[in-house]
């Protein structure tokens, strides 16, 4: 268990939506349209964002829009809460320190 997991969350239910291509920190990955950005990122990555004050990795916590620990940058939008934001084709998400548009 010592090496970093490929992704944190695991999809266990069949999707009935098309696979679309999104970009995470410039890397193209596939995700299902309509699932949450949190799932799309954490299915591939061990973390969603890095805490502004310590740089520590974070991957959300409450998963229901309350703890605000899953804010990511989405190009053209700005900050967005990953657990309540649905994925659409071409979405570009950054897990780093917020960049300005």
């Amino acid at each position, binding site marked *: 268990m010592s090496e970093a997991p490929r992704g944190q969350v695991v999809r266990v239910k069949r999707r009935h939506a098309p696979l679309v291509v999104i970009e995470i920190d410039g890397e193209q990955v596939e995700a299902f349209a309509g699932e949450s950005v949190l799932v799309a990122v954490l299915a591939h990555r061990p973390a969603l964002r890095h805490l*502004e*004050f310590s740089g520590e990795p974070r991957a959300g916590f409450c998963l229901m829009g309350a703890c*605000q620990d899953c*804010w990511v940058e989405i190009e053209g939008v*700005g*900050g967005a809460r990953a657990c309540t934001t649905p994925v659409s084709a071409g979405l570009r998400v950054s897990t780093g*320190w*917020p960049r*300005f*548009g």
Partner: protein
Amino acid sequence: MTTRLRTEVAIIGGGLMGSWTAYFLRRRGLSVALIDKGEIGAQSSGVNFGNLRLQGRHPGQIPLALRADAVWDRIVEHLGEACEFERGGHLYLAFDEAQMAKLGHMAEDMFRCGVPVKLLGAAGLRARWPWLGAGVAGASWSARDATANPRLVTPAVARAARRLGAEILSGTRVSAFAKDGERFRLATDRDLEIESDALVNTAGAWGPQIATVFGESAPVFAAGPPQFVTEPLPYFIGPSVQAADGRVIFRQVRRGNVVVAGYPRGASDPVANRAPVDPARTLAAMQSLVEAVPRLAGTSVIRVWSGIEGYLPDMLPVIGVSRTTRGLLHAFGFCGHGFQLGPGVGLTLAELLVDGGTSIPLSDFDIGRFAGEVAHDERLSREFDSASLAATGWSAAGKATLP
């Protein structure tokens, strides 16, 4: 059993003014009790915007402000901590020629008072702060202006005063006042009576309640600006910035959050101890913020607050000796501009009590000025919402009289 406390000076109101006064009185060797009905620095002293601004002040306040500025310069020596004090400078933004002309007049006033203020055109401004919005026509710049964290300052001052021997009595409400010969006797809601030679009223928005006991008053109206803060962002802003018409005021703290305020101010409730913020005002100030700094458009606001600040119709505080009662001093109603002045007020009140006089001109701030009609400051209609102004009872003719 009731405890009796004998002190040379009793100060009512443990905000910034009361705490600095306690500190400087102890430095001058007087015994002091600082009394507050609640917590030290919990009201407007603790929730204000945090500007330590010199430019744009009423010229009559500048001697006091410069005196305060010298203390702020040595904040660590005084308090043992910096409380996020930083000389980041202050910009007034003009969005049109008329505002720019006003800033020009202000800069001349400041120059005469010994505060250097530089005027900047749009090109010069954007060269230095490229993130400013396209609507900004020019600005005035005061490099000497500073900011500090208001949540931390007042408790730190009170701690410094206590280290010097001041008695800090929080959670203590004065329930009755008496002047017995040369002495003040204060009854409290605890088993504690306080006897003092002098009494200092630094009770902020609650100041008139104490003044009234001694037969004088000031038409204080409690209000506060809507304030809010964004999520933390990479540090980029630098100076403290204020639209000349007050529609938005902002600064970024080193941790990254952008602290924002914006006029109009709205009424707050000193009785229920509430300072509600109309969400529509927050939204309006957010829009003005994006106009001033377009790149903030993608960020979010995470917290809104206001405060219970004491305002007077001429937008000047009450500072000085009582007209009715020997040994009584007032310093309240700072009209949202008191944070910077705090140490200057403390030093000056200490002088009045110890030396019997001060070189700082205080006549503009005399409590007696409200005996007749007092002209309204032109900022009132601009910086306050009309509903809260109507609630003040100040006459519509632009004059205020005591009820």
